């Protein structure tokens, strides 16, 4: 299948005072055409920074993309000039942020903000753009679109604004849509409505979606493939139908067990010991080794590689690397 996005060994670091924060440290993955890929991980695992790197909106001068390649339809986004990127951002790749309330300009009418994209990217005339904007509001199920076109962001509820944001992201018919925790701040009922809308629109426009979230439930419902990130590294990458049956990495297993299930009730929940590590020091070792239950001796001085266990299922853990099986097997004997 054709790859729409191919990220290779991306490293994004932040330089704050004399410290270096290794937010994204050697991430590689790809997204196929028409696929929904989801990145999950706890806060501080580098999910959002990955998305910002794709969009080229890493805050400067603190943030810097150290190395790596981001191939979008075969072209490296990191080699492009700001001018060329502007033509891609919002047009070919668009993003919906976590906090909808803060991402719209409070002093401009919603309609104008929608129209702006079309006038800049598609060189449309005002009248035509207005017609298209109203059409788009209708598509995302906003009641009374003509009236809402003239509303200011503060007049709408959180769910409605998120729909406007989705409309704005889709108005130029992008090839890749990035949803950065787009439903986290919303209620479950609104969340369900937005997710089904996204899925419907994906079919309609044949888009690819990169879904960033920390909610495994959402992932299970709409994603095709899951990438688990922790401490700026990819720990596991697996197809969705294996998530309930065949997760391999101890972190992913722990994460699955942590979530209280709605179907059954337990007295004590499983919990992963310790806290999320500080990203100041670069991980020469497995980022999870301090909290890992299945830690073995070698974990203290070895960085596992991301290896393919079976088709489309990659794991970064000593337990599954052949090398260790050999070494550790010998050691224990």
């Amino acid at each position, binding site marked *: 299948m054709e790859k729409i996005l191919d990220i290779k060994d991306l490293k994004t670091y932040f330089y704050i005072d004399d410290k270096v924060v290794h937010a994204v440290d050697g991430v590689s993955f790809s997204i196929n055409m028409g696929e929904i890929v989801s990145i999950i991980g*706890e*806060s501080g695992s580098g999910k959002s920074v990955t998305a910002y790197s794709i969009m080229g909106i890493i805050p400067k001068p603190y943030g810097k993309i150290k190395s790596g390649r981001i191939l979008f339809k075969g072209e490296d986004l990191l080699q492009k000039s700001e001018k060329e990127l502007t033509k891609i951002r919002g047009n070919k790749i668009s993003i919906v942020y976590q906090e909808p309330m803060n991402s719209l300009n409070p002093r401009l009418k919603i309609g104008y903000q929608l129209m702006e994209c079309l006038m800049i990217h598609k060189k449309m005339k005002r009248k035509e753009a207005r017609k298209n904007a109203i059409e788009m509001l209708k598509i995302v*199920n906003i*009641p009374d679109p003509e009236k809402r076109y003239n509303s200011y962001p503060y007049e709408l*509820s*959180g*769910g*409605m604004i998120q729909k406007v944001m989705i409309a704005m992201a889709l108005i130029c018919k992008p090839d890749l849509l990035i949803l950065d925790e787009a439903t986290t701040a919303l*209620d*479950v*009922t*609104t*969340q*369900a*409505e937005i*997710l*089904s809308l996204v*899925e419907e629109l994906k079919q309609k426009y044949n888009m690819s979606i990169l879904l960033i979230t*920390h*909610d*495994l*439930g*959402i992932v*299970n*419902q*709409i994603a095709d493939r899951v990438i688990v990130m922790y401490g700026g590294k990819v720990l596991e990458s697996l197809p969705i139908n294996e*998530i*309930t049956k065949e997760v391999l990495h101890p972190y992913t297993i*722990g*994460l*699955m067990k*942590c*979530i*209280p*299930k*709605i*179907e059954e*009730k*337990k*007295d*004590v*929940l*499983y*919990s*992963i010991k310790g*806290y*999320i590590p500080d990203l100041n020091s670069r991980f020469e070792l497995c980022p999870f080794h301090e909290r890992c239950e299945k830690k073995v001796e070698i974990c203290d001085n070895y960085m596992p590689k991301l290896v393919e266990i079976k088709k489309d299922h990659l794991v970064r853990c000593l337990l599954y690397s052949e090398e260790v099986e050999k070494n550790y097997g010998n050691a224990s004997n």
Partner: protein
Amino acid sequence: MEMPLISVKNLKKYFNMFQSKEMIRAVDGISFDIYEGETFGLVGESGCGKSTTGKLILRLLNPTDGEVLLNGDNILKYNRKKFRKLRKDLQIVFQNSSSVLDPKMFAYDILVEPLILHKIVPRYELNEEVDRLLDMVGLPKSSKRKLPNEFSGGQKQRLIIARALATRPKFIICDEPVSSLDVSIQSQILNLLVKFQNEYSLTYLFIAHSLNVVRHISNRVGVMYLGKIVEIGSNKEIFKSPTHPYTKALISAFPNLEEKKFNEEKLILKGEVPSPINIPTGCSFHTRCPYSYGKCKKEEPELMEITKGHYVSCFLIEKNL
């Protein structure tokens, strides 16, 4: 029958609006009982009045109307002095945020303040007591000399819980205690809350919007919609056999791990929660309810007991009977 520890009767809170005669009906006549040693969960979408209810019980807000009975005594009638003595029995754990902890107070001072105010331990034991509290919630003793901003989200939440436990309360309101935490930390905090409930026989009012958390921790659950309780029942009744259409929609909208993809059976609600300023006439849910019929628009359903302890306010029950 056993006397409830907390009994809320027809509690109402209307907020005035600026330069307008309209009222925001945040909490509109709710009644429920909480028995000793149980966890009562309160769920609903944002803006349905869950947190306001919590604040009203602790009198952090003054109710417009209604009664809150603690062991049969109306605590809303207490004067300031008398209520202050009671405060140590009733505590609250807020949603984790830096605004709950004074940024200029050391962890030690945060924990010592309630101990001194309520004269829990003599002064020469303060230091030991703080150590004990920190140890209880799993924080190192060295954190005494730290400011709130030096703690991570989960650690802050532990500190807030320690502060609530300092006065040895009987009843704690947990207002979204885990909603801003990561799942791995969330489960740690939930386990902590359950542990303390068993050790000190605490009673919780657990307010949250994530259903799986409420399902995990509660014995009984109340579902709120627009300032009213639409369904109350035991944990099992609410989650296994939800009766009110809103409860059904909430549960089916919750993204869970067991079920795959959105299917046809899922009840996805269209539209927005109506504004609490002009609540629809009749059943407040009728604008979004897929089963609503003529009567729903005109009359308001009462909470009816369908099985013992399971109350629902919906006309569909009548129809089926």
